[in-house]
C-alpha cells in the first residue's frame, strides 16, 4: 500500500510541477532561514560557555555618578580582586586584564607589526579561564616579569611553528620590551568575549598600583561552588567603607558615603556572570563589541515566524491542490480505504515533501552561509550541523513540519464524502473557512512588521551617518605616529601639513569616535573641591590646529592661539559644560583640578566649542574640555584630494623616511565613525534579508491561496460571467478579498511595529522620529505586492471559458 501511496505522491508532485516547486521551494527557503538563524542564535548563546568554571566566574563592574556624570564601566580598581580574595572565603580565585595601553608594536624580522589583540594579565589567568596549553606550563607561565603567553596562531606568525616559539623572545617597541614566550595556548575560541593572541605579564604594567579610585582593570572572580553571586554582591558596601572611602577622604574631601550620596553622587560595584557578558552587558570599556540579547530575541522570533509562514504556505498550497484530488479520495473510500489510512497517506506525502525541502534547505544554507557570515559578522560553518543536537533537529524537523503542515490537508481531504465528491459537488462545502484568512493575516502582519522595522533601522543608520555631529568627519585622515620622540612627530606633521592636498594638520591623541583615548578628571568651580562644586569632565589634550582640522566650531570666545602666552593654563569647554555653569557667562571663569602630582591647578575658560558627539549617538553628550597639551600618538590631516591613493603614498613615504621599519597605520575618520555602528549595520542587513524573505514566502502563500480561491470559485466566476461580469469585474472581485486581508494585517502590524521600533530607538540618545509615511508606504507596498501576486490567478480565472466551469454533464 505504501508503494501505491508513494507512486501517487510522486505522480502528483510531477503532474503539478510549478505548484510543487512553489510548495517545496517555499518550505525550503523557510527551513534554510530557520537553520541559519538557529545557528546564529546558538552561536550567540554559546559565548564564554567553553570555560569549565563558566557558571562561577563573575566580572566586577563599577557604577559611578559624580558631578552629574554617569560612568557605567566594565572595569574596576586594581586592588579589588585581591582584596575580595583576601577578605572573603567565598572567593576562590581572581584574575585581571589590563589593556589601557592599546595596541603594541611587535617586531617580526626587521619590521614592527601593530598587534591589537594584546593584553596584560595576571598569572592566575589560567586558573580562572579555560585556555588549554599546547606547550609550556600555564600555571607558572606569567609569574615573572617579561614573560608572555601566546596563542597557536601568534606562534606560527612570529616563529613559524608552536615548538619554535616556546622559550623564544618577542620584542615590542617599549623600553624593556623583550618578553620570553613561556607557554603556547590554543587559540581563544571565537565565542569568547575577549579575543587576545598575546597575554603579557601584569608585572610589566607601569601603573600606580593600590589605587581604589582609578578604574582601569577588567577583574574577574571565581566564587566557590554553591555560592550565590547576588548574595555575595551585598558585600560591596563593606568593601567601599573599608577601602575606598579612606582614599576618597584623603584625595577628594569626601567626609562619608552618606555625604557623598546626599550630593547626588553614587558609587556601586556589581557582578556580571561571565555567560551574561556577551549578550547582557553594554558598559563603557567592554573588551570588545558585545552582542545584544534584544537582537537574539528579535531574530529568534523572526526565525520562528518565517518557519511558521513557510509551514502555513505549505498548508495553504496543499489545501489548494486538494480540491483537485477529491475524486481520488472519493474513489479510495468507495473501494474500501479507511479514513485512518487516508490521513496516513496525506501525512506521508507532506512529510516526504518536507524531507525533500529539508535537503534543499541544507543546500541553500550551504550556499548562503558565507554571505550570511559576512552580513552577520560570524564565523559559522556548515559542518556544525553534523553535531548531534543539530543533526537531531535536522532529522526531526521535516517530520514535525511535514506533520504540522500536512495535518490540516490530511484531515480535510480524508473527510470528503464519497457520494458528494463523485458527483463533483465537494467545492461547495470546503470554501467557507476563515482559518486560511487568519493564516494569511498572520503572514502579512509578520512581513509588514519586518519591513517597517528594516526601513526604520536603515533610516536611523542614515540619520547617524548624515546628522550634524558637531564635527566634520569627511576627508580626515588619522595616522598612528610611530615610536619616535615628540620633536620628530612634530616634524612629520609639519612636513605633511605643507602638502598642497592637506588643508590642515594636528596631533590627535583624542578623537570623537569610540575606542579612542579618554581622560576623565574631576573639576571644581572653586579651589577646594567638594561634592557641591565638583563634577567629572572629559579632559582632552589638543594642539592649536585640532579644532579646525576636525571641523569643530567655537561658538563663544576663541580657540587656543600661539599669540597668547597664557594659553597653557587656558581651557575650552563644550556646550554641555557651559550649561552646567549657567547662568554665568563661562568666558573668563576659572575651573580647578588636581594634576598628576596631586596639586590643584587653576584653568581659565577661553572658549566654548559647539557640542559634538564624541561617543556613539546612543549616548548623550557629556561635559568635555580641551587643554593645550601635547598628545601625539596619532595625527589628523584634513585633506582635499582627488587622488587619495597617491597622497597616501606621499604621506607614507614621509613617515618611512623618519621611522624606517615602523608600520604605517592609517584610517579615515568617517570609517572609524561608521565602525561604531557596525552592529546596527549588521542587524540592518540581517533584518533586510529576513524582511525580503518573509515577503517572498508570504507572497508565495498568497499565490497559493489565490490559486485555491480561484479554483474554489470557478463555478461562481462562470455564473457571474454568464450573467455579464467582465474580466475586470472578476479580477476586482477576487482581489478585493485578499486586499482586505492585507489591509487588516497592516492595521495589526502598524502599531506593533511602531511599539517595537520605538523600544529600539530608545537606545539612541540621537534618534529619528518615526514618520507616518514609512507606515503608509510599507502598507501600500504590501498591497501592491499582494495585488500583483493575486492578479495572475485572478486574470487566469477571469479569462477562463465559463462553459467549462458550468458543464454538468
Amino acid at each position: 500500500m505504501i508503494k501505491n501511496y508513494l507512486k501517487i505522491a510522486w505522480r502528483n508532485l510531477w503532474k503539478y510541477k510549478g505548484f510543487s516547486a512553489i510548495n517545496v521551494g517555499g518550505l525550503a527557503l523557510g527551513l534554510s532561514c530557520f537553520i541559519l538563524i538557529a545557528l546564529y542564535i546558538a552561536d550567540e548563546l554559546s559565548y564564554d560557555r567553553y570555560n569549565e568554571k563558566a557558571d562561577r566566574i563573575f566580572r566586577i563592574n563599577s557604577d559611578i555618578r559624580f558631578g552629574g556624570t554617569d560612568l557605567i564601566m566594565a572595569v574596576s580598581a586594581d586592588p579589588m580582586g585581591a582584596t575580595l580574595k583576601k577578605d572573603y572565603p567565598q572567593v576562590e580565585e581572581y584574575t585581571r586584564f589590563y589593556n589601557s595601553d592599546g595596541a603594541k608594536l611587535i617586531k617580526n624580522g626587521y619590521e614592527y607589526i601593530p598587534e591589537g589583540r594584546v593584553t596584560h594579565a595576571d598569572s592566575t589567568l589560567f586558573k580562572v579561564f579555560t585556555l588549554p596549553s599546547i606547550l609550556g606550563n600555564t600555571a607558572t607561565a606569567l609569574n615573572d616579569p617579561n614573560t608572555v603567553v601566546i596563542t597557536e596562531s601568534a606562534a606560527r606568525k612570529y616563529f613559524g611553528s608552536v615548538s619554535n616559539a616556546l622559550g623564544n623572545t618577542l620584542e615590542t617597541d617599549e623600553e624593556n620590551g623583550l618578553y620570553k614566550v613561556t607557554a603556547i595556548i590554543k587559540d581563544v575560541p571565537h565565542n569568547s568575549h575577549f579575543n587576545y593572541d598575546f597575554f603579557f605579564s601584569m608585572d610589566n604594567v607601569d601603573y600606580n598600583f593600590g589605587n581604589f579610585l582609578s578604574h582601569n582593570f577588567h577583574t574577574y572572580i571565581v566564587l566557590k561552588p554553591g555560592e550565590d553571586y547576588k548574595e555575595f554582591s551585598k558585600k560591596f558596601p563593606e568593601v567601599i567603607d573599608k577601602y575606598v572611602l579612606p582614599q576618597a577622604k584623603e584625595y577628594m574631601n569626601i567626609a562619608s558615603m552618606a555625604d557623598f550620596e546626599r550630593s547626588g553622587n553614587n558609587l556601586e560595584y556589581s557582578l556580571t556572570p561571565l555567560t551574561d557578558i556577551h549578550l547582557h552587558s553594554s558598559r563603557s570599556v567592554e573588551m570588545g563589541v558585545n552582542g545584544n540579547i534584544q537582537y537574539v530575541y528579535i531574530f529568534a522570533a523572526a526565525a520562528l515566524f518565517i518557519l511558521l509562514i513557510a509551514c502555513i504556505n505549505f498548508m495553504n498550497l496543499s489545501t489548494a491542490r486538494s480540491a483537485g484530488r477529491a475524486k481520488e479520495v472519493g474513489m479510495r473510500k468507495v473501494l474500501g480505504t479507511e479514513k485512518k489510512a487516508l490521513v496516513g497517506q496525506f501525512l506521508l506525502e507532506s512529510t516526504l515533501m518536507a524531507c525533500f525541502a529539508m535537503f534543499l534547505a541544507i543546500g541553500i544554507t550551504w550556499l548562503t552561509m558565507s554571505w550570511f557570515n559576512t552580513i552577520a559578522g560570524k564565523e559559522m560553518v556548515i559542518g556544525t550541523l553534523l553535531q548531534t543536537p543539530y543533526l537531531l533537529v535536522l532529522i526531526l524537523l521535516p517530520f514535525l513540519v511535514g506533520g504540522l503542515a500536512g495535518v490540516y490537508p490530511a484531515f480535510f481531504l480524508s473527510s470528503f464524502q464519497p457520494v458528494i465528491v463523485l458527483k463533483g459537488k465537494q467545492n461547495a462545502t470546503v470554501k467557507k473557512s476563515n482559518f486560511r484568512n487568519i493564516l494569511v493575516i498572520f503572514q502579512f502582519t509578520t512581513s509588514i512588521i519586518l519591513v517597517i522595522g528594516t526601513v526604520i533601522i536603515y533610516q536611523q543608520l542614515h540619520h547617524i551617518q548624515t546628522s550634524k555631529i558637531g564635527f566634520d568627519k569627511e576627508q580626515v585622515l588619522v595616522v598612528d605616529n610611530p615610536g619616535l620622540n615628540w620633536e620628530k612627530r612634530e616634524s612629520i606633521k609639519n612636513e605633511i601639513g605643507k602638502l598642497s592636498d592637506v588643508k590642515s594638520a594636528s596631533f590627535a591623541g583624542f578623537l570623537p569616535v569610540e575606542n579612542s583615548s579618554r581622560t576623565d578628571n574631576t573639576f571644581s568651580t572653586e579651589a577646594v573641591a567638594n561634592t557641591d562644586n565638583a563634577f567629572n569632565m572629559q579632559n582632552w589634550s589638543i594642539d592649536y590646529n585640532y579644532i579646525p582640522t576636525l571641523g569643530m566650531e567655537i561658538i563663544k570666545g576663541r580657540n587656543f592661539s600661539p599669540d597668547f602666552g597664557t594659553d597653557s593654563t587656558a581651557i575650552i569647554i563644550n556646550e554641555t559644560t557651559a550649561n552646567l555653569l549657567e547662568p554665568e557667562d563661562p568666558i573668563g571663569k576659572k575651573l580647578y583640578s588636581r594634576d598628576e602630582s596631586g596639586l590643584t591647578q587653576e584653568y581659565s575658560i577661553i572658549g566654548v566649542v559647539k557640542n559634538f558627539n564624541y561617543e556613539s549617538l546612543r549616548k548623550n553628550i557629556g561635559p568635555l574640555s580641551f587643554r593645550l597639551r601635547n598628545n601625539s600618538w596619532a595625527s589628523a590631516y584634513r585633506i582635499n584630494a582627488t587622488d587619495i591613493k597617491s597622497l597616501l603614498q606621499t604621506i607614507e613615504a614621509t613617515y618611512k623616511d623618519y621611522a624606517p621599519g615602523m608600520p604605517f597605520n592609517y584610517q579615515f575618520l568617517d570609517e572609524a565613525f561608521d565602525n561604531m555602528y557596525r552592529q546596527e549595520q549588521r542587524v540592518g542587513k540581517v533584518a533586510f534579508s529576513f524582511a525580503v524573505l518573509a515577503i517572498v514566502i508570504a507572497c508565495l502563500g498568497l499565490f497559493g491561496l489565490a490559486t485555491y480561491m480561484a479554483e474554489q470559485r470557478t463555478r461562481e466566476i462562470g455564473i457571474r460571467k454568464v450573467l455579464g461580469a467582465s474580466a475586470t469585474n472578476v479580477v476586482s472581485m477576487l482581489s478585493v478579498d485578499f486586499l482586505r486581508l492585507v489591509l487588516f494585517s497592516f492595521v495589526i502590524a502598524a502599531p506593533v511595529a511602531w511599539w517595537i521600533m520605538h523600544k529600539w530607538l530608545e537606545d539612541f540618545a540621537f534618534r529619528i522620529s518615526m514618520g507616518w509615511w514609512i507606515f503608509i508606504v510599507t502598507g501600500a507596498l504590501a498591497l501592491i505586492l499582494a495585488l500583483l501576486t493575486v492578479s495572475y490567478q485572478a486574470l487566469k480565472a477571469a479569462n477562463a471559458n465559463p462553459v467549462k466551469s458550468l458543464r454538468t454533464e
Partner: protein
Amino acid sequence: MSQNYWKISLYINYKPNQIMIQITNLKKSFRTEEVETLALNKVNMNIAEGEFAAIMGPSGCGKSTLLNIIGMLDNPTEGSYRFAGHEVGGLKERQRTELRKGNLGFVFQSFNLIDELTVFENVELPLIYLKMSKNERREKVTKVLERMKIAHRAKHFPHQLSGGQQQRVAIARAVVTKPKLILADEPTGNLDSKNGTEVMNLLTELNQEGTTIVMVTHSDHDSNYAHRVINLFDGQIVTESQNRAMGAMV
C-alpha cells in the same frame, strides 16, 4: 473594435417574425493533446423571434455545445452564427459579454445560483453588471420575485430553498433584465414532476409574452411545450418537427 460591438448591441431591435438566430454550416471541435472531437458538424438552423424551440438528443450529441454557442458563451470553430442579422460567431470574449448582458437569459439544470448570495442578491446580479441604479434594481427584482411567487424567500440563501424554488429563482434571474432570448439547459433535470411542470408553465408564460426560448432537454414531456423540436445526433441535426399538441399542454 469597441465601437463595433456597441453597434451590434444597438442593432438588436427585433421586428415581429424576424429570424433571430441564423446558424449556417456550424462546426465545433474540441482538441485535447492527442484527440480532436467534433461536437457539432455542419449544423444549419434558424429560430424566429417569439419561437419556443426544444433541442433533443442523446447524451454527448452536442446539445449543450450548441446551446452554449447560441448563448454566446462559446465560439464556433467554423461556420456562421448570425444573431438578429449580425455575425457574432467570431466575436471576442469582451464583445460577447457586452452583447449577452440584458439580451440573453440563462436557466441551467443545476440552477447555478451563487451560494453566498441571497435570493434577492442572486437575481440582482445581472442588473448590477448592467450598471443599473440601486432603486431601479430593487424595483425590478421585487417585481420579478413576486411574479415568480418567491418574494417571501428574498432574504434566504439558495441552500435554504427546495429545488423547485431554486429553479424559480434562476428563472427570475434570467428574466429580470427582460431578455429577448432565454436559453434553458435541462431546466427540469433536477426537479420532481410537480416542480418541473411549474417551471415549464413559467417558461411557456414567458414565451407567450414574446420571449424567444431555446431549451435543451432529454424529456419528451418537456419538449411538448415547445413549438418545434430539433433532434441532434452525433453533432448533426437529424430531424426537426413542429409541435401541434402544444396548446393542450398549457
